[in-house]
């Protein structure tokens, strides 16, 4: 069924057709509508889930952890400060190997109180052991939730999918909502390997000495490595059933491009337009949309930029004291592989400032007119 819905509602529908069994969430702008609609689904009997009202995001994630430990499919959604409050338990969920799915609406961190988008909230959780997907469209949001459960439940690591505040969360687009029975064929019932139960009791998360902790981390990384292939397969299987796929890193006119723009989130759709226009003008520009950020598909990225002359990374985030975070990831990915490839790191659109086609044009022009970057951080649009 096709519906014109906001990104937030796409999240709710995604959680519904995935048959989430436990939803524990705390409202926060701009995520609130997600929770509202899910609570209505539960109240109306459209979704047979336990909806737990909690007093904080910390408790929301704690509830999801408990639920997931019993083998239930657990879902939550949050944003910015809410995600930050969850931080401790994000680690817990990952180290506890619990396949929880979380939707985070990207919102800038305060103060400088903001409800508008940027990626610093989710990127601050980079090292917690969660898979991260950055979505470009409402359809992709919905699909990524279904895929997220599919991947997570195979590898026992949680998934965070990320959508931009307002540009996606409050913007309506046509979205195909798949039939729940069809989703069932793609996403079977979760059968937990390790389950908290009274019949066969185990304690989870107990004291683990130096004898074993190290290996737990080692196995986590091992799984993360495998997750790339599993995510790829999940996307392919998704395509066979639903006729859509999103890839891990999408290549858009990039194979023969001299300049490749590396983007994520809703900036990708703007960039797509700009690339089309530049191509029609005969300029050799392409785009890579990084959808999967954790684990980072390093080899896929290297392959995608094999023939490029320049790479321009657009970061709607900043690791203060270093630079763009995607930029960091990409420079380190490329280190020792193509030392001849100049990589430009652009910062744009922080705190929800529009990244318009003109901004992208400015970035392209900058990259085209410089052989190598003058600085590690190239600020675009800052009022100096």
């Amino acid at each position, binding site marked *: 069924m096709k519906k014109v819905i906001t990104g937030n509602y796409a999240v709710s529908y995604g959680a519904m057709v995935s048959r989430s069994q436990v939803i524990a969430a705390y409202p926060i702008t701009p995520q609130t509508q997600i929770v509202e609609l899910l609570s209505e689904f539960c109240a109306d009997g459209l979704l047979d889930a336990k909806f737990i009202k909690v007093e904080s995001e910390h408790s929301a994630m704690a509830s999801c952890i408990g639920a997931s430990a019993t083998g239930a499919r657990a879902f939550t959604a949050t944003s910015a400060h809410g995600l930050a409050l969850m931080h401790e338990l994000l680690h817990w969920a990952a180290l506890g190997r619990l396949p929880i799915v979380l939707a985070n609406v990207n919102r800038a961190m305060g103060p400088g109180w903001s409800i508008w988008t940027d990626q610093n909230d989710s990127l601050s959780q980079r090292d917690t052991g969660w898979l991260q997907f950055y979505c470009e469209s409402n359809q992709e949001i919905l699909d990524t939730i279904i895929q997220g459960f599919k991947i997570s439940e195979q590898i026992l690591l949680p998934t965070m999918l990320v959508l931009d505040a307002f540009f996606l969360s409050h913007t309506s687009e046509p979205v195909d909502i798949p039939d729940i029975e069809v989703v069932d064929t793609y996403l079977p019932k979760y059968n937990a390997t*390790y389950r908290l139960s009274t019949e066969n009791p185990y304690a989870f998360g107990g004291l683990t000495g130096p004898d074993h902790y190290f290996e737990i981390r080692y196995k986590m990384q091992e799984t993360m490595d495998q997750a790339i292939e599993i995510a790829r397969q999940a996307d392919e299987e998704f395509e066979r059933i639903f006729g859509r796929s999103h890839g891990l890193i999408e290549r858009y006119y990039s194979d023969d491009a001299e300049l490749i723009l590396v983007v994520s989130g809703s900036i990708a759709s703007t960039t797509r337009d700009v690339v089309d226009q530049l191509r029609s003008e005969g300029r050799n520009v392409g785009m890579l949309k990084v959808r999967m950020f954790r684990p980072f598909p390093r080899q896929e990225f290297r392959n995608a930029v094999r023939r490029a002359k320049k790479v321009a990374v657009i970061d709607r985030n900043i690791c203060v004291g270093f630079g763009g975070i995607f930029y960091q990831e990409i420079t380190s990915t490329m280190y020792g592989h193509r030392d001849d490839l100049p990589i430009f790191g652009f910062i744009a659109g922080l705190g929800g400032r529009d990244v318009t086609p003109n901004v992208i044009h400015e970035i392209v022009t900058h990259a085209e007119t410089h052989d190598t970057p003058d600085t590690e951080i190239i600020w675009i649009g800052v009022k100096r």
Partner: protein
Amino acid sequence: MKKRKYPKDEIITFKSANEMPPLAVSLGSMRWNKTGSWRYIRPIYENKTPPCDEACPAGEDVEGVQYLCEQGKFEDAWKLILEEHPFPGVQGRVCYHPCEEACNRGHYDEAISIHAVERFVGDYGLNHGLIPPRLSQERGHKKSEKIAIIGAGPAGLVCAYHLARMGYTPLVLEAHPVPGGILRVGIPSYRLPKDILEAEIEHIIKMGVDIQTDSRVDRDLLLKDLKDFNAIYVATGAHESRNLNVPGEDASGVMSGLQFLIDLNLGKKIAIGKKVAVIGGGNTAMDTARSVLRLGSEVVVVYRRSRAEMPAIPAEVEEAEHEGIPIHFLATPIRVITDQERVVQMECVKMELGEPDESGRRRPVPVEGSNFIMDVETVFTAIGESPQLSFLTEDIQTEWGSIVVSDHGETSKKGIFAGGDAVDQPRTVAHAIGSGKVAAIAIDTFLRGKDTAKIAASVQIGQKGSVSMERYLRGEIRYNASKVVRFEDINLAYFEHKDRVDLPRADIEKAKQSFVEVNSGLPESAVTTESGRCFNCGVCNMCENCWVFCPDISISRKTDAFGYDIDYDHCKGCGICVEECPREAMSLEEEQK
């Protein structure tokens, strides 16, 4: 998830990451880690004495009764009382219930209505034809020794009841034509209906007690007929009214209040005047005044001290006043004025309270020139009773008119025991019952050649002289009897404030016109609610708190009995169980290293 394949009590060490689960999960157990060795204090289950139990002179398991009543187990509650004495129906009506004064709940909101609950339980037993619990064949086997009990008041009857349970066939000799002592001939039926008393005495008779009424023991009989008895219990009460020692006292209109009650209760016709004065402030005075009222005369009570010093049960005084009986406090008669041998007036003097006397009460002293005269036709004296002991031989020591006894009821003569009002002890039914129990234990140990003092000490409850017959006869240890739970020991977090349920208020206007029982009892639902308010001080009722709170899963429910086990191999001695026990049924002990 597959069943465990790891050894349960050993440390699991994985050799490679491949063998390991991906997360921290207890595939084995931590039982190998005997964390109990870290402990320096240990929790123990130790039931303690609830203050109500300690305060009950009759030695009832008051808390146990509340526990059973809360669950509606009234039969068990009745039997629990009958382990101690056969008079719950009586005591549920006439006891002065010091248990309620001691009740820790009183410091929180209001004490439990223990007295009203007991009455319900007593009536339940009678209404359902329950039979008193018997002892095992072994404990209660027939015994041949001859025991005589003089006086069928509560002391004598309770002693006889327990001796009969132990297998003796005691002979009770009673001067009156009916058994019961003051319960039968003193307390009027509007407070204690005769059928209740008779039904409970019937249980005693059925137990194998031989009661011979109309058998006053005199010295002759004592020396001859009771010569070859192995043990004698003297429980003859105190029935001799003290004199006023004022001029005019010999007039025919001046009578003993107690004698009046005895006559009334034995159905004799008594002529009294229209205007009656009752002198005194005890139970006899109150009962006399209220009976006079019911016979249709005007009555006034004259008492030489103030309300606070009245020895009568406060509830009785309250009821008398409710019925409209005036009490002249701080006044005493100094002369009875007669006209042609008939009483016409009484001259009194007002008193004031001076220094405390030997009883601790402030001594009343006359106020000079405060004399006043009141018109009366009959004067009842109720200023105290003394035992009538002239039938005793001189080798039985007496002092201040009472028989001298040891803590175990032994008189100065071997084989002769005494108790109740005939000895120097508080004049209450509960104390009489308690002394009957003490004597039964002393007689049994004496006849069986055992160490009375040692055994008596082992059956004490608390520090106030109460004894547990259940413990004596069945060896059942209710609790660490010497430790009494204080209010501070209760964890109030677990108790909600709740109003006390009292007896329904009687219709006084109707009540004062007849000898029908004034108060009605509590309905069953009120009883369960009321006993549910009980803190169950010091006695585990399996509330599960310790089990729930133990962070080390070191507490488990006993599978075969009441209570919990502590796994000392793993208990770290954190003390949470003891802290969270609402009722001080657990304690911490320092670990003996």
